């Protein structure tokens, strides 16, 4: 393990004090992948949510859906 700092006795000479200096590039790549993966997950999740709701509205009719507006927790099931 690397803490990168073993003593505070010469603080003026210290540069980066986070652990594992030198892995900045891999960290950036991991961070960018997490960002892009999050968008992908969110898009799929949101579209599925609307598909589920649409399927339900088609079953019960849009007028019935409007009657229960604001109480969708009792109308739409998510698995």
């Amino acid at each position, binding site marked *: 393990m690397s803490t990168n700092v073993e003593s505070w006795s010469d603080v003026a000479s210290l*540069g980066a004090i986070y652990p594992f*200096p*030198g892995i*900045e590039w891999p960290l950036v790549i991991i961070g960018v992948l997490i960002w892009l993966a999050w968008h992908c997950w969110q898009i799929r999740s949101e579209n599925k949510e609307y598909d589920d*709701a*649409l399927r339900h509205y088609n079953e019960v009719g849009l007028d019935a859906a*409007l009657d229960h507006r604001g109480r969708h*927790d009792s109308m739409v099931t998510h698995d």
Partner: protein
Amino acid sequence: MSDGLDSLMVIFTEFYYWVTVVMMFLIHVGFCVYEVGASRRKNIQHTLMKNTMLIPLVTITFYFFGWWVYWAFPLFPLIETSLAAAPFAVPWSELMGTHMGGSVTVQTESLTADDTMYWARINGVFWAAFLLFSWTTASIISGAVIERIKTQAFLIIVVLVGSFTWILDAAWGWSWNGWMVQLWGFHDAYASSVVHGIAGGSALGVLLVLGPRLGKFAADGTPRDIPQNNPWFVTVGLFLIYTGFWGFYAACNVPIIDFNGPLVLANGNEAFFTATNIYLTPTSLSAITFNFLMSLSGGLLAGYVVSRGDPFWSYSGGLAGVITASSGNDLYHPIEAMIIAMVGVWIAYKMHHWVERKFKLDDAVGAVAVHGYAGFAGTVIAGFMLWGYPSNVVGGDIGWFGNNADGVAIINPIGNFLGAMLFFWVLGFLPCWILSKVLDGMGWLRVPREIELAGLDTHDYGDSFPYHAYRDTVMEDVDRELAKGQG
């Protein structure tokens, strides 16, 4: 840092920006509260989460590339044909993390010891101050598009605006050496166009593709006033935005610098410590406090008159007033700021309703007007009001529309008009219109019709807010007619 005075200045500057960041957080709180109040109950949670999730996405992308854009692009492409080196602003820099200012051990980038010491202290808070502007710019779009945009589309659009287009405009027109400042004499000290104009233009680009909410316009084209679910949330939200705006103004300044020293004029004269704006030209917190409050007051007074006391437009008038005067609020007399604010509010209010009727544009909270039209007008007005002032501290006689005796480009109406156009239309409207077209083509932009009618809160979150029965009922009848294919 071993020199006492230098250390104090640097650590004071670090603390100063940190405080502004905390204050600016209130702008986002205000936007969320305000949009929740403006949404109908069936859409509240969607509205809230859409605007909330821009925080992490703009933050991480501003870390990955936004901060680098600000430092790499100021001279590109009209003064230099290559991008500037910004070794402290790339995400793999040691200085983009916890650092004590000693040597940069891992990298071989050309940073002097003084640079390293300075950026080790300032980088995080300076990055964060700009980041909070990014949130604001992106969040302005959020209110305009409520109740029908898909969250996925919004979150892609805000990355474009928050981490690229706005910060590119800041590099060009809101930095001490940006090419618009040096060549055009562009001046927009508190971001009328740099933040608000581009955000308004961006919102307009999205709105044109997105279309109005179902039921907003009757079959004959008459606009309907969709009632706010909670007007008190709307006004409290706008109050919070006012509060955060104090931090926004303070963050636009450099708090303390030796104006005659090596970082500014380097003229060998006796040290003169002052605050400056982002262009490194002198101002003070007192000056901008006078003008902030007087322009807020002018905006409120005018908003109350033009809307005949409507709370939403009176409060929005206060905001639009500050936004209009912001371009020149480092220099105006307070009464000038008040009058300019009143003019901007009148323009924003009239334009909003004219565009709504003429083009069937459904800007749910008036964001294009309050931020876009007011910001645009304020930048143009500043070009006339400040005509002849030196725009920056860089000489060289390279200004296209006039230079002063020191060879510095002067502020002028043409430069500010071109800047307002560039930000609203070229960097604001155009990229967002194109991106919205692409997203629309992929089916990612707008929720299906049935979802919009029944409400975007399809998820099983459960109820979260008291039901203001009358206000929603007004539009429910319209929704039923639309569901039957009428209306």
